[in-house]
């Protein structure tokens, strides 16, 4: 029945074109898929899966880096670091 469609988002049915556009935008950020030659044939579900994995990996990296930073926190000299770091990073 068409009851499933009526439960979709309040606006009209999302077109495939819109999805394709957004998915290709996501693809730009995923190194694994970007490097593949036949990038046109990657299905949306695969892209979403890779996106989820990528986000999980990034969260994990943030975890590890937070741990490292909190260990190093005691070594931070409060007086001069800010300006120096910002200059070197930016």
């Amino acid at each position, binding site marked *: 029945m068409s009851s499933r469609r009526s439960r979709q988002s309040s606006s009209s049915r999302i077109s495939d074109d819109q999805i394709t556009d957004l998915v290709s935008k996501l693809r730009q950020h995923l190194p694994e898929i970007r490097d593949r030659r036949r990038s046109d044939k990657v299905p949306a579900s695969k892209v979403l899966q890779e996106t989820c994995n990528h986000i999980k990996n990034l969260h994990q990296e943030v975890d590890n880096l937070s741990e490292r930073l909190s260990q*190093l926190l005691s070594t931070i000299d409060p007086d001069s670091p*800010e300006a120096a*770091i*910002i200059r070197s990073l930016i």
Partner: protein
Amino acid sequence: MKNPQRSPTNPGSLRSRFTQVFLQSLLRIRKHNPTSSSSSSHGEFLKRCRRVKVAAYVSMARAVGTRRAWSRATLWRARNGERQRNLLYGRCSKSNSRERSLGKRKRKKKKKKKRDNEEHSFGHAKKLQKLVPGGEAMDFCCLLDETAHYIKCLITQVKVMRSIADFYSL
């Protein structure tokens, strides 16, 4: 992807805004949790770790501002003092619009039909909703759009955090 390390970039860029806010947060954490490395207990260490982690996400959300739904969700959660873990992983235990946006779909194994691509996408989109802050309230298009921006910001966040950690490891 270029990585301009020493060349001056836009001082108002996301990267520099995040760096400033995050460094301020780090100094604040250090001030409120003054411990020497050897005498602090493991529990204290974990607390500090969590604070640094939350500070990183909140700093990035503040650098982005309120123009993105995911950053608004992060800032809202931080202000409302929900459990830190929910903030970090975008989990919202009792969200009102939890599944309404993408429709209530049970995960059924379907044969390959024309709609299959879309429904596969919705299955994965549920997982994505949980990973992106504020994702539960977004429809599919917004979710993809916000996700792209969120990933870009996460990558910047990781790079800056790594630079700071490397800087102090020397």
